[in-house]
Every structure is written in structure tokens, then in C-alpha cells.
């Protein structure tokens, strides 16, 4: 296969995987206003769970599901002490959890070979590189579509309205009798599970993971995708994920081909930081506006209020 084509197809897989993770952060931050600064931890749990399960002989579709369940469990476990407190506490605790997890995986050699990392047995050995790539694209794409429609349904459901209520006015949500701790914990579980699925797909695609594949920088880039694309907009965060990922892939290609006096990775990260600050200052809603609630009921109500617009 043509080298350029391979780059593009590879980038597509990454865009798909990170779109799933960005959607999960959108559920937590975009809709519910929860600051999960440990996104990479659940991504890592998904990746490691998948790798260990497949190695143990679990069929890969089941392993993806189990990876999601394990990530959700840890999401619940970590969120519980911090979820009752202010956003900054949740941010610090989740960030901390990601770091502890990495220390744990590094220190416990018996579990996943410590710092050396583990290879992930290929789920569908075709022996043909390009075929493998295309299967991965289809798999990631299919799961992304499922996640996207799930998020859309969730956002328009009564549950989604509670999520927005918790974000916009927690006291009011409390006052109408919604148990905010319960709902926040549920959102956190959903978000962690989705990030876990992303991690499983990531492990499956790259085939070899080490603790240092999961540095806090990943959390930052996922936040960047959501902030750039527009919190509360599912299409927005996917566009954000695509933009950030293509930028990152582009930098890697640039590093391979062109010799620059400065390290392109540094320039890229400085630019990422600047872009985030500029967006927060001048367009805090991101590129895409939050989508309005769109259900049969609201459509009918709008038609009744405004009969001229069909």
C-alpha cells in the first residue's frame, strides 16, 4: 500500500479512538460539568484489561465489553470520595488516580510486565498489514457510530436533562429531588466505561502497550478536543478530536521528514496550550454550539408555538 495512504488510514483509526474518548469526556464535562482530569487512567484501564483478558484467552468482543465494565467500576470507586466536593477536588483526585495507577502498573511486574509493557495478541490475524488496518478502521468506526448515537440519545433523554441541570444549577437540581451524587456517579461510570472501550481499541490497534503510553499529556489532549470542539456538542467534540489528532499525526510525519531547528513536538504542544487559552478567552463555548434538546415532545411543542416553521 502507498505510504501516504497508510499514514492517512492510521490517522483515521486514531481519530476514531480518540473521538470515542472525547465523547466520554463530553458526557462528564460537556453535559454534566464534571472535571475529570484523569481521563487517561480509564483509557489505560481499558487498554490493560483488554490486553490481559485477550492474553488469557477471552474472545476479543467480550474483552472489549469487560474492559468497559472494569473501567466503569474504577470510575465509580474513584469518583465516590471526591464527587460530593467542589470541582477542583474531583480534578485533583482523578489526576492523582492516573498517576498512582501508572506507578502501580510499573511496580507490579507480575501483572503486566511492569515498565517493559505487554504485547497484545492480534484479535484478527490476517497476516496482511493493509487488511488488518482496514478491519481496524471498520471496527473503530462502527463502535464510534454506536457511541455517538448512544450519546445523542442520552443527551436527549430525561437522564440527559438531569445531567444538564446538574451542570447549570446544581442547587436547583437538588431542590427538585434529584440525587446529585447518584447521578454524577452514574455519569462518571458511563464516561469511564466509554474511555475504557477507547483504551481497548487502542491496545488492539497498536498491539503493544507500556505504562508510558499513558502519560497525563493524553488527558490534556482529550480536554483540548472537547474545549476546541465545543462542550455539549457531540459533533463538535468529534471534529475537535479529528483536528487535534490530525495535528498530532502531522507533527509526527513532519518529524520524520523535515529537519527543523526546533523540536516540532515542543512547538506543537506550545501551540496546543496557546490555542486552549485563546479559545477559553474568546470563544469559551468552543467551535460548535451545544445542541438543543431534540425529542419528539420538544419538536411538537416548537411546532405548536411557531406553526409557520413547518
Amino acid at each position, binding site marked *: 500500500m502507498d505510504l501516504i495512504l497508510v499514514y492517512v488510514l492510521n490517522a483515521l483509526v486514531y481519530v476514531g479512538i480518540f473521538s470515542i474518548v472525547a465523547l466520554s469526556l463530553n458526557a462528564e464535562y460537556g453535559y454534566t460539568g464534571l472535571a475529570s482530569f484523569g481521563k487517561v487512567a480509564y483509557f489505560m484501564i481499558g487498554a490493560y484489561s483488554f490486553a490481559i483478558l485477550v492474553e488469557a484467552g477471552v474472545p476479543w468482543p467480550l474483552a472489549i465489553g469487560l474492559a468497559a465494565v472494569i473501567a466503569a467500576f474504577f470510575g465509580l470507586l474513584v469518583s465516590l470520595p471526591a464527587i460530593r466536593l467542589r470541582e477542583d477536588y474531583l480534578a485533583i483526585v482523578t489526576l492523582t488516580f492516573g498517576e*498512582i495507577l501508572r506507578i502501580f502498573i510499573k511496580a507490579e511486574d507480575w501483572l503486566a510486565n511492569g515498565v517493559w509493557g505487554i504485547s497484545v495478541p492480534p484479535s484478527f490475524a490476517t497476516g496482511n498489514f493493509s487488511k488488518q488496518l482496514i478491519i481496524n478502521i471498520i471496527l473503530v468506526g462502527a463502535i464510534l457510530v454506536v457511541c455517538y448515537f448512544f450519546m445523542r440519545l442520552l443527551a436527549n433523554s430525561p437522564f440527559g436533562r438531569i445531567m444538564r441541570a446538574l451542570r447549570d444549577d446544581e442547587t436547583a437540581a437538588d431542590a427538585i429531588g434529584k440525587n446529585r451524587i447518584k447521578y454524577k456517579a452514574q455519569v462518571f461510570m458511563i464516561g469511564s466505561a466509554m474511555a475504557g472501550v477507547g483504551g481497548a481499541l487502542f491496545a488492539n490497534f497498536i498491539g503493544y502497550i507500556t505504562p508510558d503510553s499513558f502519560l497525563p499529556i493524553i488527558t490534556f489532549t482529550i480536554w483540548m478536543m472537547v474545549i476546541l470542539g465545543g462542550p455539549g456538542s457531540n459533533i463538535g467534540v468529534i471534529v475537535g478530536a479529528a483536528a487535534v489528532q490530525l495535528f498530532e499525526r502531522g507533527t509526527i510525519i513532519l518529524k520524520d521528514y523535515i529537519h527543523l531547528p526546533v523540536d516540532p513536538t515542543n512547538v506543537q504542544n506550545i501551540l496546543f496550550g496557546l490555542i486552549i487559552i485563546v479559545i477559553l478567552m474568546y470563544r469559551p463555548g468552543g467551535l460548535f454550539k451545544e445542541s438543543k434538546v431534540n425529542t419528539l415532545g420538544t419538536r411538537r411543542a416548537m411546532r405548536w408555538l411557531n406553526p409557520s416553521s413547518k
Partner: protein
Amino acid sequence: MNWPQILLNSAVTGSLYLISAISLTLVYGLAKFPNFAHAEIMSLGGFIGFWISEQLGAPLPVAFLVAFIVAGLAGFLSYRLIFKPLSDKGASLIHLMVASMALGFILRHTEGQIWGFAPLTFQKIVWPSWELGSVHITLDWILLIVTAICIGIALHFMMTRTKIGKAIRATASNPKLALSSGINTTRVLVITWFVSAGLAGIAGLFRGVETRVSPYLGWDILLPTFAVAMLGGIGSFYGAMVAAVIIGLAENIGVVLLAQAGLSTDYRMAIPFVILIAVLIFRPQGLAKAFRGN
């Protein structure tokens, strides 16, 4: 267990965390958000100190002074150019946190571009060391402990005896009331950001002298710093002093226990976090109330 040595090591660890946590908590209590770029400002202090003393050959006290000023300026600029405009536009707590992470990113990779990511070691200065019985002690440890105590005392007097200290406390507890009683809160914030970032620079340089300097210097001690600040109670600087001692002791006793239990001593880094989680479950307001005195 070699208790005298453990106590000394705890004092050293605690002193470093104390400087870094006081500087974090000053801004946290006033600006009401955790500044994640604190880590990279510490690294900046380390790099500036390295540059002054190793590459330019100036004496170490000069390096500390310049590190304080440059880190302080970085803090001042970050307030003026990023955090003040953001707060004026009504940015949420999460937005401020994300912006501080973004700033940390910019600083970290600028430092990486200038000095590289490979750790640098201070080589020109050889610290004298002594063996007192079973205790190994070096001059830089003594300096660190003395500096931490001096900073603590200086801040205590600044907070209680000076006008600016009173203004800082007033602004921290009620910004609107402080503003309406004629306190120039912007000036208070500027000074606090400068002093706080400057102290972060000093903490970073101490850490660099003790270990090595790299763009990850600050990140390595950021989370224990958070643990100390939260255990002490955000914004409480007496709480931070007690918390620094507790975390310092826990870490150093914990390392010995880990080694005895046959576990990896890498878990040393996890000890402050475990304490942090326990604090959040049982006493989220920190130790502060117990030390406020009223």
C-alpha cells in the same frame, strides 16, 4: 529502624513540600482555583538557578535570588495575561483549571526547547556532609530546613503584622467586602501571585539542587504538594505547615515499611495520595479549622 535518620529525612522532605505547598495555597486561597502551572513554575526556578550557577558561574545565593525574581515574574505575567482576563470574563473554575494546565504545557515545552528534556545535574557545588552517629547529614539539607522555617516565619509576620498581609487575608475571605472597604484587590492579587510564584521557584531550585533539573521537576512534586495543601486546608498556611510535617513523616516512614514488606519503593509517591484520599473522605475541609484558633 534508624529513627534519627528517618526524622531528618522527613524534615527535609517536609521542608521542600512546605515551601512548595505554601506558595500553591497562597494563590489557591485567593484566586480560588488550583494552579496546575505551579509545577512548571517550580521547574522554571530550577532551570534559572541552574543557568545562573552552573552555566554563568555565579554563587548560589545569587542563583536563588534570580530564580525567585524570574519565577515571580512568570507568576505575575500569567496572572496579568491569562488568569485576570479569564476571571474578568467570568470563566468557571474548570476553565481556570484547564487554562492553568495549558499554561503549564506552554512553559514545560518552552523549557524543554531551551534546556532539553534530559535531566541536568548541579556539579560545581560539592556539599559538605557529616556523620553524626548513625545520621548522615549534608549542608544543603540544613539550608533547606532553615530556609523553610525562615519562609514560614516571614510569611507569618507578613500575614499578621503588615498591611499587605491583612489585605491578603481580607481578600481571601471576602473579595467583594475587601474591595468595598477600599482594598485594591488587584494589587493584592498581583503581589500574591508574584510572591507565590517566586517561592515556587525557590522550591524548584532546592529540588533541582537535591536531585536533578528537568521540565518534569515540578510535576514530580506537584501531587504531594496538593496533598499537603489540601491536608492543611486550602488557603491555610498554618495548616500547610503541620501537613508538611505529617506528609514528610508518612513518606519517609512509609518507604521503610514498604521496603520491609517487600513492596516496590516506587510507591513512595503514592503515600501522599493515599493520605489525600483519606482526607477527602473524612475531613475535606482539611486541618485548617483546628489551627485557625477562633
